[in-house]
């Protein structure tokens, strides 16, 4: 366990409608390409970034700041990729093909 990297970041939800279906789909697609576990925290709840149901049920509005915790061998890369997704407002073509 100690050998695992743990990376903590903050991300901001910019899409106008909050964390809705489209961003969730892209987020899950991106997260599942990494072996690390990726958690997002909001309003006292934790969501697994690889679970669409978790994310949907967390109901994150636009403008919310989420704490992210990534743990695993590829934590750094995973955190970078997820941050990029949030920073680009889930709009850059190509992010969904990764």
């Amino acid at each position, binding site marked *: 366990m100690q050998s695992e990297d743990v990376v903590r970041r903050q991300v901001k939800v910019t899409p106008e*409608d909050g964390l*809705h*279906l489209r961003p969730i*789909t892209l987020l899950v697609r991106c997260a599942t390409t990494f072996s690390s576990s990726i958690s997002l925290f909001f309003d006292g709840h934790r969501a*697994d970034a690889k679970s*669409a149901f978790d994310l949907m049920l967390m109901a994150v509005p636009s403008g919310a700041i989420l704490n992210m915790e990534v743990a695993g061998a590829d934590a750094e890369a995973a955190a970078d990729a997820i941050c990029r997704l949030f920073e680009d407002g889930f709009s850059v073509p190509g992010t969904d093909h990764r």
Partner: protein
Amino acid sequence: MKVFSGIAVSPGMVSGPALVLGSENFRIPRKFVSKDAIDAELQRFHVALDLVCKDIKGNEQLVSSQLGAQYGAIFSAHLQMAQDPRLIREVESLIRDQCRSPEFAVSRVLRSYAEQLQKMGDRYLSERALDIFDLEKRLLRKLLGESREELSNLTEPVIILAHDLTPGETATLNTKYVLGFATEVGGHTSHTAILAGALEIPAIVGLGRCLAEISGGESVILDGDHGRVIIDPDDETLARVQHSQARSQRVRDRLGEMGSLPSETQDGQRVTICGNIEFPEEVRQCIKRGADGVGLYRTEFLFLSGNREPSESDHYEAYCRVVEACGDLPVVIRTLDIGADKVPQLMADQFAESANPMLGLRSIRLSLRNTQMFKRQLRAILRASVHGNVRIMFPLVATLLEFRQAKMILMDVMEDLEDEGIPFQRNVPIGMMVEVPSAVILAEEFAREVDFFSIGTNDLIQYTLACDRSDPTVAHLYRSGDPSILRLIQMVLRAAEKHGKPVTVCGQMSSDPRFIPLLLGMGLRSLSATPQAIPRLKEVVRNLSITEAERISQHACSLDLARDVEHYLQGELSRLCPDLVDEVGF
């Protein structure tokens, strides 16, 4: 003999034995399993889940390869849900820790998600509940072994009568044995209807409750042209249908060769016949049938298929595919015509509960309220315009102000593109759909400002006769042959002629051969119809002279009942093109 009427969504007439699929209400046989069986039950859950994932992937691949990636996308979100780790964890825990049966656990967990989503008061997410129920159904079906094996183990031709068919079931129908299908529920724009049309299987949806009266095995006639299902037809009807089936096969073969022949009347008048399409893949079907271009490219599917709003490049790529496939032939791109019966999940939150959605926020009204979205689409259309012969059309325009506003936004977008040095066709023709009676009444005024009109008869009939054709209790009022409709079309043609603007008729009226002599006689010279109908329309045009068409239209316009008009036109068509008229006079 019993006759049921529904909404015709895919043309063709077939007869065969009925295969009835009832509505699926799964009864969960037991809620608990014994402690010793837990491992086996967990195993059973995972087997079912794997099968479901395989099915969904299979649906996606099959549909993508046969019909194009856009249809396949319907299924990719389903797969993500089926593989969701939270779902798997919670179901496993119910089985392992509470000795629940997999059936019970699956149902309990998925239903709790659906309920929570529905309670959030976010219409956008609550629509997702429907997909969750779909997943529940798939899993239960595997677990209970109640797969609709009837569908995969067919050995003889059948006509399927079902409460509902999911898009997945429709996509995997064995077209060798499934002659056609009809469902109790569903509308024009359901994915099931769209897939049926693309697969070219005759289909009817929205029959209303009727399965209780059918036990299966009865002889059935399914008339996908008129939306009628006849159960146990009498011998005479059956004989006529079988005769007409054999004949229509011969006619189909002959019409298949119609593609290369010019669409020209006996007295040498050229008539433009274009195709209506929804997906880029359908251009092929238009070209194959000798269409003069795409007269109506519906762009809604871009919005309805995915879980996300299409980006400018999504729009652009789709438009380029169509425009490039058409070469020099014109492509009329209609901007977003959404709302009312087809609300995409991603915009559901913009649609307030409305008792009257057909009169609410839809089409151009929605675009004018969402200028960002509208501009994105217009930019993509303009960018695609350099690759061919593009025209832009605004739907459901009801007032001059709306048309001017839409045009102004288009000009803004042009300026932006110019500033950015992005090439586009500056003089792209800008037209409008005529679908609201107010637009007909002011046709003269509109004619001064538009480059072309396209009469959308479906909505025009609905709004003129104030009737919703998907409501079986009033659908009889919805008739293309209503004298009021003929009069409105005449008004548009006259106004357009005065100002030298071209007019096309799209919508179901122009796909119906009976109305071709009438429309040409009124002065129409351009039609746009579903690709499948093009050869038949060409045949009518080629058997007709303008003088004759004028005589027919004069007489038709003197009649004062829709049924008399349609009866008369039917008679004229059977005289002109006896082959095209089905002998089954319902």
